[in-house]
């Protein structure tokens, strides 16, 4: 065990994967000698050579197109998109190519070895273009897996599982936590399951569901609610696609209430999908409407970042409203 922040855990996972399999290659803008703008790929080029860790030209559609071809060839690409906000030039490559490669070829070809890493989310004074949470765009795209870690321990285990999974994975890293979140991380190789939610805290009155950096906000709100005598169950969804509806439904059948929390805007956010599924599976168990505490339906603001964020106090108020419905 070692104390690592989330970036160090990512870096450690990449070293583990590259040591384990020489077909693993890491590339993107500034990821080579410089080690990435956040330093997630520090020292990889020194350790593994320029052939396996390299800078690419500044072209997101090129990076993912190249990564698709490399994966189809049998290599194991881990492509970095510098910010989730800049993934959209690659949207066609991801949605029309990555996600459909296996299906359209009847399983003859696939890009299952591909992992796309990208930092997402707000809370760093990043304004419109360094703060977005794009998971819902990609959740509408069969063939992809989408994974979000909440802390360094989860990040290493989930990233290793993503790199080795036989399907393309979009791995969204909460950049607010890159240096802020520190936890014990095993130095050895380990994997955490994809498609499986994690019950962070058990409780009996309401289920609080989120992912990534928002788990800390749920924990803060749950602590405040506990002072009122409210027992919250907290679930980290971890995988957005495919998502673990069974764990969530089992929890809601126990607590009778569900609150879903994400940074992305409310309308068309992934909370909508969860709410629709859970009301189907748990209709007769629900004591109150499913609450969504999300970002506003605005572009991500800069000066009003604090007001925009679906933080612990907003969650706490929604818990009270749901309990007293």
């Amino acid at each position: 065990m070692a104390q690592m922040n989330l970036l160090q855990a990512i870096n450690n996972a990449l070293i583990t994967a590259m040591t384990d399999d020489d077909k693993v290659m890491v590339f993107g803008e500034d990821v080579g000698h410089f080690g990435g703008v956040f330093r997630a790929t520090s020292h990889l080029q020194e350790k593994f050579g320029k052939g396996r860790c390299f800078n690419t030209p500044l072209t997101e559609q090129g990076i993912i197109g190249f990564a698709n071809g490399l994966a189809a060839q049998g290599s194991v690409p881990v492509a970095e998109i510098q910010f989730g906000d800049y993934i959209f030039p690659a949207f066609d490559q991801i949605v029309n190519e990555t996600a459909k490669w296996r299906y359209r070829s009847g399983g003859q070809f696939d890009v299952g070895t591909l992992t796309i890493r990208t930092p997402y989310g707000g809370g760093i004074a990043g304004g419109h273009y360094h703060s977005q949470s794009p998971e819902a765009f990609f959740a509408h795209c069969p063939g992809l897996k989408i994974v979000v870690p909440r802390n360094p321990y989860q990040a290493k285990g989930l990233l290793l599982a993503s790199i080795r999974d036989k399907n393309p994975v979009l791995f969204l890293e909460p950049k607010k936590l890159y240096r802020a979140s520190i936890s014990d991380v095993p130095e050895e190789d380990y994997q955490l399951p994809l498609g499986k939610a994690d019950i962070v805290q058990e409780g009996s009155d309401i289920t609080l569901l989120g992912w990534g950096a928002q788990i800390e906000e749920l924990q803060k709100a749950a602590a405040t609610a506990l002072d009122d005598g409210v027992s919250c169950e907290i679930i980290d969804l971890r995988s957005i696609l495919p998502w673990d509806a069974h764990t969530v439904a089992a929890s809601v059948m126990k607590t009778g209430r569900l609150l879903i929390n994400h940074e992305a805007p409310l309308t068309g956010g992934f909370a909508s999908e969860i709410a629709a599924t859970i009301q189907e599976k748990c209709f007769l168990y629900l004591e109150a409407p499913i609450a969504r505490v999300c970002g506003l339906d605005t572009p991500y603001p800069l000066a009003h970042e604090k007001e925009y964020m679906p933080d612990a106090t907003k969650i706490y108020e929604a818990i009270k409203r749901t309990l007293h419905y």
Partner: protein
Amino acid sequence: MKDRNHLAQVTTVADVNIIDNGIIDIPMLQILDENGKATPEATLPDISQAQALKIHETMAYTRVLDERMVAAQRQGRISFYLASTGEEAATVASAATLSTEDLIMSQYREQGALAYRGYTTDQFMNQMFSNKDDPNKGRQMPIHYGDKALNFMTISSPLGTQIPQASGYAYGQKMAGKDAITICYFGEGAASEGDFHAGLNMAAVLSCPVIFFCRNNGYAISTPAEEQFAGDGIASRGLGYGIKTIRVDGNDVLAVYAATKRAREIALAEQCPVLIEAMTYRLAAHSTSDDPSGYRSKEEEEKWRTKDPITRFANWLTHKGWFNEQDNEKRLTAMRQEVLASMKRCETTEICPIDDIVNDVYDSVPWHLDEQLQDLKQHIKKYPHMYPKTSGRMK
């Protein structure tokens, strides 16, 4: 290529120095004239009689297939088709220079390259009739072929996406120490996509052994090349990326063969990309959904008909004493019969069972897709007459 990425290496001038298109004139390699006579000063590529005849037969086969399938679409037997009439030399003669280990990533008008690799008539038909014998499981429109055994990547409709993918595939071949390259076909219209820029730039910077083969056939559906770009074709762009470039007469089998053979040698030996621009003409409509009479003249088409690549090459073969018109007629008749018989055989083959609707989305079927499949099957059982292709075969 000169390394000009550092300011100190840039020469200076004292006057405003305008560089325009006229400064370079990229010539086109041509070995056979329009009558199929080798130009006296040309160096003929080393090509065996057997290979020359295989190229001719594949071109002729491709035309037979195209003619039959356009007619089949008109009869309503298939939904869609894309003919390659006039462009057979560009695809077949280039594919003829490759190793079977080289990966082909095509756009959608390269059935000639696939036929040269050995794709059978039944395989063409199974794909076009989206039946259960198509290894792509009938999931895409006609002409989206793909065959792992032949190293021919399954085609996708979005234009240009295969270009950066080819760079990545070639990089993987290099890293794995393979004695193989990737060839990537596309049209001059697709070269306007951002993926063209991304793919060529990445291949040059990352030294990928890939041939970018542009079929400049003059039209992107109805848009003529002069409304597609203002520069000197696609070849001029290669220079900007620092990529070795060849412009070739795309209707001249020997020129395409010589150019692609050389390009492959360079790509493999120097582990770098090469760009080929083949100047040709799409005698066919864009697809069966298109009618060229709305945007180009009969006179223009007739002019290009006289440059027909198959006739031109047959003339050269005749000069060589390798070609007999009577044998050719017999072969064409046999091909037409084979295509017709195969079509009749394959058009009635059933489609994949309903379970395949959820297979291959992921490596295994996740819970939510399994739930959706079970719901769908219950529904089909309730309304079997609505879904006759699958309802009778459900377990």
